[in-house]
């Protein structure tokens, strides 16, 4: 079940740093400017996560997973 080898190399690298690298690459801007822009992007992602929470509406309920012999 170990399928995360692709992302293993990015462990420990912050989302902001990764975004800054990408922005600097594609926009050819100084890295400090890219970092600032990436920070804004991370803030936007955070806002999206909050929106997703709102989409759930109510907190999920907790249930015991059904036994296979008691399936639908």
């Amino acid at each position, binding site marked *: *079940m*170990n399928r995360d*080898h692709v992302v293993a190399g990015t462990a*420990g690298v912050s989302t902001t740093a990764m975004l800054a690298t990408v922005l600097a690459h594609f926009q050819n801007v100084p890295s400090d400017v890219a970092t600032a822009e990436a920070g804004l992007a991370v803030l936007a992602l955070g806002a999206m996560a909050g929106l997703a929470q709102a989409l759930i509406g109510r907190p*999920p*309920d*907790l*249930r015991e*997973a*059904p036994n296979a012999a008691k399936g639908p």
Partner: protein
Amino acid sequence: MGAQIVDTDTAIAAPTAAMLAAAGVVGVVRYLSRATPNHPGDLSAAETAAIIGAGLGLMAVQHAAPPRRWWPEAALGTAQGRAAAANAHDAGLSAGTTLWLDFEETAPGATAADAIDYCNAWTREVIAGGFEPGLYVGPNQPLSGEDLYWRLALKIYWRSAAIVPDVPARGYAMRQSAPRQLAGIIVDQDVVLGDAFGNRPHWSVISNP
């Protein structure tokens, strides 16, 4: 047909969740990152909404470290257990939901004592974070069945599709079988059996109005 559950390393959007439900799947296990925050592609709050919104149950499993290159120890278990609980909370999972530790492929030479310390430290942090700890028992790790049952603090076990030790007395509460393609994604198939003491894992479902 029994209650079919799938685990997958692929993020599930609402259309895929609906297709899984239509195919008879009743629940999903999705991944959490080993550190905070969750990596893109691991479980997010939006994905939680999509999955439970389709009427599916949702549990989570934390990624294992790269195979054969990681050493289990208490400090690592503490850090990863704390991250698992924080990431599950951020993804909107209900308190009490079972979070699985994907335990497999430790470095050659890792001892059972190291692994016990690692698993028990992880367990303490997951419980402190408000979730239920469970162990996915994968291949190439140093714990025997006796270790799994007598020396770990957690109480619920998920048998991988690999050849792994039996858990004496208690047995496995969930069992994984061969992967397949379903709803356009690759999934492993799982069933909940309940262990010999009648315990089953817990998942998050959409709340009734």
